[in-house]
């Protein structure tokens, strides 16, 4: 029946028949006929002929983009003098490169189905480590940075050990670890700010082009690399499989333990790199430097997971950081809540993102209210305007007939003919 040819050597399909109607099985035809009949009755709702995939423009899919447009609209009118300068937008990028590094690093354990709450602690600990090494001990720069990254490696492996081997719930294990790391940071810094880095180290966060810092470059490279790994390699597949159904993935030959462990090491390494960047950028370090990054990173990861695809993805997270921080920046320029607005924004974003995804799940099985029906979507109204849904070749009179819903038509179709 199927005229499919498969190359024995490569296992690739060399020829595959197109799904033409006359090539389908009898059952296909039966079902297709039924769907056709149903379509005829419901053709006034038929928007399938729309040439544009409207779904990909739906706020559900790219809501953050709409939010960004809204932010532009608001601040264009509110603070036009400052909003229209490159300085404003580049400072959003410069100030949030660190957050992007932390957030994309966090995506890895989240994709694999474990939480890493120790990221903030790791940032603080490695920032303190590099500052302490440079200022108090007098290590050379590569040694100090190496030591900071070593902190990340140790933390990641400890987390991996606790979660994978001891089988502590990742939430609890990494929460405990973050407290341990805070203790380490306070102990090393004596609970005081560490200042006075050599210029060479501060130069790591200098500008490189168009007023952008080198940290932006680092963040972009890391985000791009991680995007490639998650979306275009087998490793990414294995990570998502581990996060989706761990035991099923294990039985499919995925070494889930190894990927869980590796994902925790990855996020810790990203965080410790963020710690080094933080020390270089701010020129001073305290024991609590990393704390403000915990919630924004989670908010960005979760808000990003509602964008583009229904899973954690790099560009969603990056965009979420950029858009939310643009909004924060705008409000700060306008002089609103300069101190508290950031916490508010990210808190709301986290709740909305998680709430939205569970709301969507409920809607799926729930009642279909008019605003959730297909025929109330943008494609419907636009389709109505442009005539996509109209039956082909009909005069206005035929259309009128089509429009008029004949009840006998609906009632007759499900009666089995004798």
């Amino acid at each position, binding site marked *: 029946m199927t005229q499919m040819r498969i190359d024995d050597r490569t296992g690739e399909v060399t020829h595959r028949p197109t799904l033409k109607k006359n090539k389908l099985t009898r059952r296909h035809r039966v079902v297709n006929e*039924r769907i056709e009949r149903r379509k005829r009755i419901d053709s006034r709702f038929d928007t399938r002929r729309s040439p544009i995939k409207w779904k990909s423009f739906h706020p559900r899919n790219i809501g953050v983009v709409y939010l960004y447009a809204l932010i532009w609209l608001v601040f264009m009118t509110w603070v036009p003098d400052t909003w229209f300068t490159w300085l404003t937008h580049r400072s959003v990028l410069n100030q949030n490169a660190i957050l992007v590094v932390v957030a994309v690093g966090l995506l890895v354990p989240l994709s694999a189905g474990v939480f890493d709450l120790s990221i903030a602690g790791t940032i603080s600990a490695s920032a303190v480590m590099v500052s302490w090494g440079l200022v108090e001990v007098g290590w050379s720069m590569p040694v100090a940075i190496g030591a900071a990254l070593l902190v990340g490696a140790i933390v990641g492996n400890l987390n991996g050990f606790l979660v994978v081997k001891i089988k502590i719930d990742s939430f609890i294990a990494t929460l405990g670890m973050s407290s341990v790391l805070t203790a380490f940071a306070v102990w090393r810094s004596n609970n005081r700010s560490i200042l006075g880095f050599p210029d060479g180290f501060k130069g790591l966060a200098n500008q490189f082009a168009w007023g952008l810092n080198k940290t932006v470059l680092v963040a972009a490279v890391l985000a791009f690399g991680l995007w490639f790994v998650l979306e275009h390699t087998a490793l990414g597949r294995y990570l998502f499989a581990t996060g989706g159904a761990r035991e099923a993935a294990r039985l499919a030959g995925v*070494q889930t333990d190894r990927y869980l462990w590796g994902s925790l090491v990855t996020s810790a390494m990203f965080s410790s790199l963020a710690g080094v960047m933080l020390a270089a950028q701010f020129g001073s370090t305290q024991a609590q430097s990393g704390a403000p990054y915990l919630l924004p990173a989670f908010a960005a990861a979760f808000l990003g997971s509602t964008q583009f695809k229904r899973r954690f993805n790099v560009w969603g997270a990056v965009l979420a950081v950029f858009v939310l921080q643009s909004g924060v920046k705008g409000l700060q320029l306008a002089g609103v809540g300069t101190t508290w607005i950031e916490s508010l924004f990210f808190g709301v974003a986290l709740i909305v993102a998680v709430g939205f995804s569970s709301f969507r799940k409920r809607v799926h099985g729930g009642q279909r209210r008019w605003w959730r029906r297909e025929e109330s979507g943008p494609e419907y109204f636009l389709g109505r305007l442009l005539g996509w849904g109209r039956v082909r070749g009909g005069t206005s009179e035929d259309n009128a007939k089509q429009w008029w819903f004949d009840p006998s038509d609906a009632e007759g179709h*499900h009666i089995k003919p004798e």
Partner: protein
Amino acid sequence: MDSTHGLIAEGSDPRGRVAPVIDRPPVLEVVSLSKTYPGQVALDGAALRVMPGEVHALVGQNGSGKSTLIKLLGGYVKADHGDDVRFGGERIDLWALDRDIRSRIRIVHQDLGLVPTLSTVENLGLGRGFQSGPIGNIRWREEVRRAQELLLAFGLAPDVRQPVGTLSAAERAAVAIMRALQDWDSSRPGLLVLDEPTASLNRGEVDALFREVRRVAAEGAGVLFVSHMIDEVLELADRVTVLRDGQVVASGEPAAELDERRLVELIVGRPVADLYPEVDAAVGRPVLELSMVFGIALRGVNLKVHEGEIVGVAGLVGSGREEIAGAVFGATPRFMGKVLVDKRKVFATPRDSIRAGMALVPADRKALGLDTQERLHQHIPLPRLGPLQRGLRLRHRAARRESAAWAERLEVQPPLIERRMEKFSGGNQQKAVLARWLRTEPRVLLLDEPTQGVDVGAKATIYGHVRDAAERGVAVLVASSDAEELVHLCDRVLVFRSGSVAAELRGSSLTEERLIAETLGATSHRRNMRIGREPIRVKVVRENPPVEEVVEIPVEVAEPMVEPEVRPQGMLSSVVAAVRDWWRRLK
């Protein structure tokens, strides 16, 4: 359909069923019921009539609209405009039922609807409330006694204070059914709907269930019995309604006039002469060899599967039958012994098993076989992504093409590779799982309950592909609780009792009756004996003085006829148990 109520010949039924009462109106009469989901007509003008005192079976393939009908009856979804349903002669609206009628339609769903963290007593009290004392305190002692009595009707005596999640599948099913049946008011018309109630029950429990169902029916209620098991349907039901593609193809056929073949034809819509293709196996060299494999319930399994051979594994719950496939694959722990594939030793991890050429289709499809959220084109390639890589990059397009080809080859319906796995029906999910593993070109195919919860049409496809694989030289091991399936599909069947191979049936001795008898360990002349088993050899290493010796544990050990359920044990305790058996015999 005629407008008079169904007339049933009285007293002519050899199975001694109670003839339904004719002069009373039907308990449930569905004149017309449709349900349309976007892009799909799930139920198209269904019509059926359940009389008082009647067990009415509803059968059909997965996706034929059975579960939609049950959802409609339960009021979980709203029917299309123009539905006409009558309950006890009165027209009702299923979407907005009043409490009284709702309480007379009792539904036991396939997933049972129990709260796993609550105890049996609490689960039984959930819908009904508890007997309470003067200050609103629950009278636990009386509740416990009541729960125990209810479950004793099933011949089960679990600890009713334990969380339901810790009970066995059969006990859970019993709890769910008794919950639906408790405080049943038999004086008024009522409808009991059972959705696949026997899926996890063994024969004795099925009999107990059928007794209960017949009792309920004899009291004048109507019973709607939804099942895949055709022999059970023919055994229990008075009349049968068959759904296919959302339409009723046979409404209220008297079960006495149907036989298995005819019913399967009605369900599938075509004659099924080729459901079980003829067995013709030429035995080659051994591919899979097990020697002295211990597991949680396994106690020293030796077996060989040859090239191109399909070997079945039968056994009661706890005999090791449900564990063997997983243990061979390394999905569940195994101790001692050796597993060889083509003479190569395989470690007890799924990864090494796959590398050695094994493939496992697990019984618990939803939890172990697939990720419900992934898409078909992500599901199929996962175990072998190597050939799809170019450098580090995964070739998405090639993966999609290959998935589509496999979906088409296995007749996954609909063949849409972008669909999430949860959206496919059970049979199609199973086909997708099989496709995933056939793609890895396995040497050994391990199937654990390959057709559990799978409709008849998909069954035929799955059998066909398993047989094809065997013809290509794959060694197939099928663990199944379905005797009929084993007899027809397999070249030989190994019967497990107490965690090891107790008997082997092949050729003319491979019949269903013989298989069931062996499974129960009740063949007349060799009753109470383990037959055909090699002695257990245990290597004992003494430290002082340093001696290694091999102790042979003979196997002609008398065993009780009713096997105790084997509790999960570690390696040490299994060895200890074997030694204890031996010691008892010495005494």
